[in-house]
């Protein structure tokens, strides 16, 4: 018998309970259904007194009681279980799932284990009619279960990576007298391809947005790396910091085919003077107190173009007067705004809502988007 407390802890550490359906796991259950021609397939995780089905076909629900379940039996014994005709097996003949709904007769399962080996659930196939299930079938089910196990573990790895990325974002925004600052980031998947930073140092508010094109682990690593590079040695000017990031990132283009664009800028909070370097990002705007929009774009190329292509970087300058707002976003925001009049929509939102409310609205729209992209946005308002 296995140690239930240890098993439960291992399951919880995987962070998969009550998570949405995942196409990578659903693909395996669909395949199992087609290969074995069964009406019901489930990836069941045994959680305290219930089963949580990460994926299921034909069972009509993502939760079921643990008590008396075949999957509980499989997990407790930590071994494959094949019941060709439950009504003919003494142990299961009186089981409520056999005598009552769904009137199970056939059940075959392979335990799913946590990365530490603890049995946390099953991949099981079920039928209301008896079936025979030979050695070859069992080997096939075992292979499919290993696949599911890999996908579940990968999910856990992604979860760890997402936590690290989250920890690298500013835990709290700097408080600057006379300014209101709001920022948020919403990843399309577990990891975001963009990173931001806002730091106050000796009266200068330095902000950074690094956006790696594409989604997933590679772009997330590139974005995190860029932000880290830009945050190092804060005494450098923004142009120097971008120049040095250029050199460090040169290997990314071409070999890894990753693009990173960035904005790196200083606001002198006393005077409102802005010094901004734009590396192919192009999405920084100033909404003046009188309602006019200005795009703060320099003509700089994305990071890491290499000596054969690179050009000298030049900073763009402006001044924030009281009532002016600086808005910086990733291109994911463009996809969710009104195509006809994105600036109008941003201006209107910022007129009705304060910076916090407007940023929250951007996150809300990002969550609703049919084809989600990573969205990062921040707003800095000079109040007085």
């Amino acid at each position, binding site marked *: 018998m296995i140690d239930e407390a240890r098993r439960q802890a291992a399951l919880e550490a995987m962070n998969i309970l009550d998570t949405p359906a995942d196409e990578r796991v659903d693909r395996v259950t669909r395949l199992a259904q087609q290969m074995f021609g069964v009406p019901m397939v489930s990836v069941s995780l045994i959680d305290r007194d219930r089963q949580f089905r990460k994926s299921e076909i034909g069972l009509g629900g993502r939760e079921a009681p643990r008590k008396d379940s075949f999957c509980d039996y499989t997990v407790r014994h930590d071994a494959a279980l094949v019941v060709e005709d439950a009504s003919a097996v003494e142990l299961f003949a009186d089981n409520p799932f056999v005598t009552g709904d769904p009137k199970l007769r056939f059940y075959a399962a392979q335990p799913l284990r946590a990365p530490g080996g603890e049995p946390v659930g099953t991949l099981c196939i079920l039928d209301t009619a008896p079936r025979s299930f030979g050695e070859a079938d069992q080997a096939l089910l075992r292979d499919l279960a290993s696949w599911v196990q890999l996908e579940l573990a990968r999910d856990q790895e992604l979860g760890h990576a997402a936590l690290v990325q989250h920890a690298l974002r500013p835990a709290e925004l700097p408080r600057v007298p006379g300014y209101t600052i709001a920022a948020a980031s919403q990843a399309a998947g577990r990891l975001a391809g963009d990173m931001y930073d806002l730091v106050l140092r000796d009266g200068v508010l330095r902000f950074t947005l690094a956006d790696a094109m*594409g989604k997933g682990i590679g772009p997330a690593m590139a974005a995190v790396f860029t932000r880290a590079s830009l945050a190092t040695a804060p005494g450098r000017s923004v142009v120097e910091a971008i120049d040095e990031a250029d050199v460090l990132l040169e290997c990314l283009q*071409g070999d890894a085919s*990753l693009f990173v664009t960035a904005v790196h800028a200083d606001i002198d909070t006393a005077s409102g003077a802005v010094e901004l370097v734009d590396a192919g990002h192009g999405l920084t705007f100033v909404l003046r107190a009188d309602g006019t929009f200005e795009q703060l774009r320099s003509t700089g190329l994305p990071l890491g173009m*290499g000596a054969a*292509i690179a050009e000298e970087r030049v900073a763009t300058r402006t001044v924030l007067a009281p009532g002016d707002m600086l808005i910086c976003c990733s291109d994911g925001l463009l996809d969710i705004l009104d195509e006809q009049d994105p600036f109008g929509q941003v201006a209107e939102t910022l007129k009705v809502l304060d910076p916090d409310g407007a940023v929250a609205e951007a996150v809300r729209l990002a969550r609703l988007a049919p084809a989600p992209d990573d969205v990062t946005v921040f707003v800095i308002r000079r109040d007085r």
Partner: protein
Amino acid sequence: MNLSTAVQEHYAVISIEGRFTAAVAPRLREEANDLVAEGRKNIVVDLSAATFIDSSGLGALIGALKTARVAGGDLRIAAAPEHVLSVLRLTNLDRVLRNHPTPDAAFNAG
């Protein structure tokens, strides 16, 4: 997707058909490296039959541009679809990765 190369007198044309994504990106890089190694430093990537280009495709174009420029040549693109042009404009890359209506126009027009 299909990638084919045609060598002209003063330049070579790499034509990409179908989806230009991570699956094809390394092949473009290799093809460009091979051409440059043979001394063919002026390359046009013909995108007229490309249905879709993602960031990996764009990355490969930049990588190949770098290879050509380092060798003293250039890489230009022809007949790029609108969504590619808009990404190039947004990132300021339109200044270094120039689009031309046809492969022929890319080098003959200077």
